[in-house]
C-alpha cells in the first residue's frame, strides 16, 4: 500500500525538481556561451574612426594598458541603458573605454554621442560588421576587457550592471594591472 502511494507522489516530485531547475535557469543567461576568445590575443583590425574617417583605429590604439572595448549602436536600447554606468565607472577607476560603433549610421551615432555624452577615447566605425564577425560579436551591447598585452580577459554580452562590474570586471582589472606593474619592474 505504501508503494502505491509513492507512485502517485512521483509526478509532483518530478515537477518540484523541474521548478528548481527553472528557477536557477532564470538567473543564467542562455545567450551566455563561453567566448572562445577569452585568454586569446584580440583579433587585429583597422577601421576608420567614427568622428574622423581619415583617422584609423586599430588594436594598437589600446595597447599597453588595461582597457575596455565596448560594442554599441545608436539603435540599441541596451547600450543607452548601460551608458551612464559605463561612463561613471570608467572615470572612477581610470579605465579607458574604446568603442566599436556597430552596424550603425555615422550621423545617427554621432548624434547619439552628442546627446548621451562620449566616454570613449576612440570609436571605430564598423558599419559592415567586419570587425564584429572577427571578434565574435552577436549583439550589442558587448564589452571586452583587454589587458596590456592585448589579451581578451573577459567578455560581457548584454548591458553592464553595477553587480557585473563589481564581480566580473573589477577583480580582473586589478589582476591585469598588477601583472602590468610586475611586468614593468621585471
Amino acid at each position, binding site marked *: 500500500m505504501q508503494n*502505491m*502511494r509513492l507512485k*502517485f*507522489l512521483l*509526478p*509532483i516530485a518530478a*515537477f*518540484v525538481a*523541474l*521548478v528548481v*531547475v*527553472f*528557477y*536557477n*535557469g*532564470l*538567473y*543564467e*543567461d*542562455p*545567450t551566455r*556561451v*563561453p567566448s572562445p576568445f577569452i585568454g586569446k590575443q584580440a583579433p587585429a583590425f583597422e577601421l576608420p574612426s567614427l568622428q574622423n574617417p581619415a583617422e584609423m583605429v586599430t588594436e594598437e590604439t589600446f595597447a599597453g594598458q588595461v582597457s575596455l572595448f565596448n560594442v554599441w549602436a545608436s539603435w540599441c536600447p541596451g547600450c543607452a541603458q548601460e551608458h551612464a554606468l559605463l561612463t561613471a565607472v570608467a572615470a572612477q577607476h581610470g579605465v579607458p573605454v574604446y568603442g566599436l560603433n556597430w552596424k550603425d549610421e555615422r550621423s545617427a551615432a554621432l548624434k547619439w554621442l552628442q546627446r548621451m555624452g562620449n566616454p570613449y577615447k576612440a570609436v571605430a566605425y564598423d558599419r559592415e560588421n567586419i570587425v564584429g564577425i572577427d571578434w565574435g560579436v552577436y549583439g550589442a551591447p558587448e564589452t571586452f576587457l583587454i589587458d596590456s598585452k592585448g589579451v581578451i580577459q573577459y567578455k560581457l554580452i548584454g548591458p553592464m550592471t553595477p553587480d557585473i562590474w563589481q564581480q566580473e570586471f573589477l577583480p580582473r582589472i586589478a589582476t591585469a594591472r598588477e601583472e602590468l606593474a610586475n611586468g614593468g619592474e621585471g
Partner: protein
Amino acid sequence: MGPLDAPVDTTAWMFLMVGTALIHSLAVTEKRGLFKSSTLLLAIGAFSLSLLGTFLVRSGVLVSVHAFASDPSRGIFILAFLGVVIGSSLGLYAWRAPSLEASVGFKPCSRETFILANSILLSIAALVILGGTLAPLIYPALGFGTISVGEPYFEIAFLIPMLPLVLLVGVGMHTAWRSMEPAQLMKQLRWPAIIAVTAGVILPYLVFGSFSLLTTLGVIIALWTICSALLDPARKITGKAPRLTRGMVAMQLAHIGLGMTVLGITVTSSYSVITDEGMKPGDTREISGYTFRFDGVRDKQGPNYEAIQGLFTVSRGEQPYTELRPEKRIYRVQTNPMSEAAIEAGWGKDLFVALGESLGAGAWSVRIQHRPLIRFIWFGCLVMALGGLIGVSDPRYRKRAA
C-alpha cells in the same frame, strides 16, 4: 520547412501528444470506468504543458527566436503561477488519485490494451521531446556544461515511439472493449493489410521511380492507417456493418487524417528535389518533369520596399504550366535584403523558386524545389480536426445530469 525553434515548436508538439493521449484515455474512463488516475494525470499534464510553453518562451530561460525579452522578474511571476497551479493539481492528484483505482479487468487483446499502449507511447514521445527541450537547462544544472539540441535529435527521438504507435492505430480501431479473439481481429484486418502492403510497395515506385526501405515502410504505415479507418465505412456501404455512430465517424476521420499526414511527411521528405544553380536568362532546368525557364529579372517598386523580380516560366512537357515571380526585396526601413520565394501550390505538390545572389552579367543563383504531397501534411491535420469537431458534437456529451 523552416528551422525548428526548440522551446516553441517542441512544447506545441508535447501538448499535442499528451492531449491526444488524454482524448483516448478519457474514452476508456467514460466507457469502462478504467484508467481514471492516468486520465487525470494526462489532463493535468496537457494543461501544465500549455503553461510550460508560456514560461519557456516568455521568461527567456531558453533561447528562442520568439522570445521578446529576457526579463527575470516576468519569469519569476510565470514560474510562481506555474508552481501554484500545477503544484496544487499534482498535490491533489497525489492525495486523492489512489482512491480512484477501479478493479475492473480486461484481456490482453482488447481496446483497453491498445489505448493503454497509445497513452504510453505518446507519453514516451512527449517525455523524450521534453528532455530535448530542457537539456540546455538541465545540463548546466548538473555541471555538464552547455549544450544545444537540434533537429536530428528531435526527428529520431520522435520517430522511435511514433512508428509503432501509428502501426498499432490500425489494429486498435477494430478491437472490442474488454476482450476480443485475436483470430477474429486478424480476419477483419486481412484486407486493409494486404491493400496497404501491396500499394505501399508498388505506388512509390510507379509514381516516383525509386525505392527505399524507410520510404516504403512509411507509405505502408500511412496507407494501412487509412485503409483500416475506411474498413467500417466500406462494410457499411456493402451492407455488412451496422449503423455508424457519430463517434465512430469522428474516430475514422481523425485516423484517416493521421494517415494522410504520415503519407505527406514520408513522401515529402523522401522525394523532394531541391537544386541550387546559377542561371542566365534563357537557361532552363528540368526538375521532376517540370521545365523552369529563367527569363531574366526586372525592377519592381513595392509599397515599402524595392525589389528585383525574377521571371520564370514553368512548363510541363510541351504545355505551359505556370509563371513564377520570386523577389529579392530591400525594405526601405530595415535594409537587409529579404528573399521572397514564389510558390505554386497544388494538391499533389508544391513548386518553389527563390532568387539567391546576383552572379553578374544577368545571371542569378536560383533555388528550385519540387515538394510532392507536402500539402497532405496540413490537409491531414485539417481532417483530424474535422474528426475532432464531429466527435465533440456527439449528443452523448450533451446529456443533462438527472
